[in-house]
């Protein structure tokens, strides 16, 4: 089994990044003008990288499949962004953020990367404020913070429930400035169809113009993949409808190793599935767990009465409620990490305590918080603290100012008023910690091909903490990649423009056209969504919140059969040279059908439980996840060998020099 060279710099973990920055090669400003960089994706990572690379002087070409770079799905992130500012004076520090992230990731992430992330986290907040991002402030005019799961400090900066939107629009505005200057050439409604590798180096991409179907060649000295995660392999997830794995999967097939595909985050607080028509799931921010208490009834007869509509949750007495997170994890309570909260919800629902008609929902209740805030307000305003109606009203106003948009979203979808009755929530696929394998410089195993943001695997181990995705996306794009890419490009200053007439471009383009032609002429009987839904069901039932060897083996076989059927019987209407959403979707689902199999294979190989990956065979007597550090303290990096079944495993051993590896406990 080959070793992965992660290129971690020498020295103590706290000095690595600074030392590394001091030693790597730079490209002079005059030479940067001679170098082209392609960025695929315009979420936080892609937009911030595009803006910074353009500012530095590189010629940037940026691609997104949406009608505008501002639509990328980072925009939907709700709760916040972490930074070790310690503005609250509650004991936060770079080290603590580093430690929390490693522990939260269940000791399956790379120390050096995570420490770097914690170091640059503070710059992000400074940068965003300078760009005019309107973070929440307190009455003194200073920045406000809230708490997120898995930590004991308040380090999360936020803009109501729209933090992702505000940060993305900040990065988008930085991009716009460079588009206006002509340093970024923006390609909206373009899909990356393949990467072009020349002499072992990434030298360009093939794209499809989604408006007119034109296949185009784009050359560059480096290619940056910032196309997000692959949660949509489950069909139902909190991802956007267009979110896909294709850019990552295409580079995987051309030589980039794919790491830890089975590490998927199932988010505990999403709106439950309502029926077969459902096309996506909606997240209710983790920030709600600051104030919401999670519970199910203690008695099964109450569950039955609630399901039949004979009993309202608000009518159930305190002593008949089971606040199971507070019961099981007194130290962290409702703010345990996501993987722990999700499994606990599943455990209660599997035991029959689910509170909606499908039996797959638990309550997230704000009544206590509303009364607590209301009392505080009444006190501040010198009003009667014992007037329950008044207190409730005042409390609702506070809750509205904190989470107003989330409550509105819930009400529109579920048609219930969460100010008056507890929300119903259930876990749903949200984020993928796994992704393209990258070294310390964020380069994949293809020279000159980088992966940043959710698309790579590097910082979150087996479970991501809340409010850390935004942090990682912007850290990679603003502050890490712009340095490390120079080290590689310093050798390219004499290369000159990349010739897109090279046979490698020719060949890649021909393959893309052949695949499209195949879909259009197939004239099968089933729609693309038919296959996507089927794949999603297999993934959710057999590779979801809890996994075992038998079902994973079944999943692999079923996905293989489904893939075969897909190529035989898929129906893609319309033509290749026009706006054709079904055609675009067919290409994406084809890649999901391969990734899904590798996902199951990875889950099967990793016989331990860790973070979001729970193997039923590996648990403590109390049902907690049981890691196997002796045999699995490594990153699984898979090399493509023609079909997922033949993928070759490479191991990157994880060495913990700074942090002692322990059993993760939130009790």
């Amino acid at each position, binding site marked *: 089994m080959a070793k992965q060279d992660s290129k971690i710099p020498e020295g103590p973990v706290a000095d690595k990044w600074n030392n590394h920055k001091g030693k790597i090669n730079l490209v002079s400003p005059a030479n940067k003008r001679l170098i082209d960089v392609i960025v695929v994706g315009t979420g936080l990572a892609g937009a911030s990288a595009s803006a910074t690379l353009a500012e530095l002087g590189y010629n940037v070409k940026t691609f997104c499949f949406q009608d505008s770079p501002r639509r990328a799905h980072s925009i*939907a992130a709700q709760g916040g962004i972490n930074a070790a500012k310690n503005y609250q004076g509650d004991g936060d520090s770079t080290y603590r953020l580093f430690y929390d992230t490693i522990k939260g990731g269940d000791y399956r992430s790379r120390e050096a990367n995570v420490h770097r992330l914690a170091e640059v986290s503070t710059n992000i907040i*400074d940068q965003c*404020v*300078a760009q005019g991002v*309107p973070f*929440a402030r307190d009455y003194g005019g200073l920045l406000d913070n809230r708490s997120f799961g898995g930590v004991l400090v308040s380090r999360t900066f936020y803009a109501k429930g729209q933090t992702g*939107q505000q940060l993305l629009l900040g990065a988008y505005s930085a991009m716009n400035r460079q588009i206006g200057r002509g340093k970024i050439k923006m390609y909206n409604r373009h899909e990356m169809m393949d990467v072009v590798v020349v002499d072992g180096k990434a030298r360009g991409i093939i794209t499809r113009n989604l408006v007119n179907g034109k296949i185009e060649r784009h050359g560059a000295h480096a290619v940056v993949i910032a196309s997000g995660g692959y949660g949509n392999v489950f069909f139902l997830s909190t991802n956007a*409808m267009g979110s896909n794995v294709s850019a990552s999967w295409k580079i995987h097939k051309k030589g980039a190793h794919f790491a830890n595909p089975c590490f998927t985050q199932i988010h505990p607080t999403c709106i439950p599935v309502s029926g077969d028509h459902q096309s996506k799931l909606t997240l209710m921010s983790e920030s709600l767990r600051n104030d919401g208490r999670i519970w199910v009834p203690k008695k099964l007869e109450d569950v039955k009465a609630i399901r039949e509509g004979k009993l309202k949750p608000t009518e159930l007495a305190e002593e008949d409620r089971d606040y199971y997170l507070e019961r099981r994890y007194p130290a962290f309570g409702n703010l345990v990490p996501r993987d722990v909260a999700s499994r606990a919800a599943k455990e209660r629902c599997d035991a029959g305590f689910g509170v909606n008609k499908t039996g797959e929902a638990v309550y997230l209740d704000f009544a206590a918080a509303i009364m607590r805030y209301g009392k505080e307000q009444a006190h501040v305003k010198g009003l009667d603290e014992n007037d329950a109606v008044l207190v409730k009203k005042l409390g609702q106003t506070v809750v509205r100012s904190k989470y107003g948009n989330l409550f509105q979203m819930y009400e529109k979808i579920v048609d219930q008023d969460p100010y008056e009755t507890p929300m119903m929530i259930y876990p749903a696929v949200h984020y993928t910690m796994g992704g393209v394998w990258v070294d310390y410089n964020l380069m994949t195993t293809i020279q000159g091909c980088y992966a940043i943001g959710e698309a790579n695997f590097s910082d979150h181990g087996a479970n991501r903490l809340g409010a850390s995705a935004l942090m990682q996306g912007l850290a990679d794009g603003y502050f890490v990649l712009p340095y490390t890419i120079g080290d590689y490009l310093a050798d390219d200053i004499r290369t000159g423009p990349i010739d897109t007439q090279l046979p490698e471009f020719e060949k890649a383009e021909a393959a893309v056209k052949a695949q499209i032609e195949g879909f259009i002429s197939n004239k099968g009987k089933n729609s693309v969504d038919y296959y996507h839904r089927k794949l999603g069901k297999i993934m959710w039932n057999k590779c979801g919140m809890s996994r075992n060897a038998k079902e994973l083996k079944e999943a692999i076989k079923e996905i293989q059969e489904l893939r075969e059927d897909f190529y035989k019987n898929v129906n893609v209407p319309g033509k290749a040279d026009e706006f054709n959403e079904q055609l675009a979707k067919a290409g994406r689902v084809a890649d999901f059908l391969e990734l899904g199999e590798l996902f199951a294979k990875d889950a099967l190989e990793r016989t331990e439980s860790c973070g979001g990956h729970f193997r039923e065979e590996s648990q403590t007597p109390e049902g907690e996840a049981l890691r196997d550090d002796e045999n699995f303290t490594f990153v699984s990096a898979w090399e493509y060998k023609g079909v997922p079944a033949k993928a070759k495993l490479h191991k990157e051993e994880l060495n913990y020099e700074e942090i002692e590896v322990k059993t993760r406990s939130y009790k």
Partner: protein
Amino acid sequence: MNLTLKVWRQANSQAKGKMETYKMEEVSPDMSFLEMMDVLNEQLMTQGIEPVAFDHDCREGICGMCSMFINGEAHGPDRLVTTCQLHMRKFKDGDTITIEPFRAEAFPVIKDLTVDRSAFDRVQQAGGFVSVNTSGNTQDANAIPIDKHDADKAFDAATCIGCGACVATCKNASAMLFVSAKVSQYALLPQGKVEATDRVLSMVKQMDEEGFGNCTNTGACEVECPKGISLENIARMNREYLSASLKG
């Protein structure tokens, strides 16, 4: 529910479009409007008819991509929602629903219900930013305290999702609400004040060049805005523009 849909079909930007009528049966009131469209498309494909092209992505009301003009209203009959958050329970069994694209000279139709809103991007590129390099070497984020009311107002303006409902709704196809929201966000924050003069002049110039109409203060945009962006922003932009013009 059983529904009759009248949907705008147009093969491409050059083709002539027309309304087509489709019947739908057993629509669940719990479906979102776009999920109903998904079902329609599955149905059309089994009949050998090309599915209806429409823009959509996040389906949770924040990306701003979905853009349907339903029964004469941008994003349909419900208030403060985008089309993806509109649910079928807002309609009745037997209803006829008319579905058109967002129409404006500056938003040409690409196909069916899909339009090109890149004019919005170009207006932003003209000045919708603070000219600060992204090196991270700025001053500490807490160095300048900002009045909470200003910060909150700036935030409210910044929640615009750039969907274009304001333009589609306006009888003049004016983009004043969209542009003023961006101008306001920066005008209210100290970080944005440095370039305020140039910003408002160049963004308004670009807005005019894109072919958006003038504002005649009907206020329809505010009513249909899925994010409740306030008309106050237009007043603020007018003020900013006037004072910038006098300076210029």
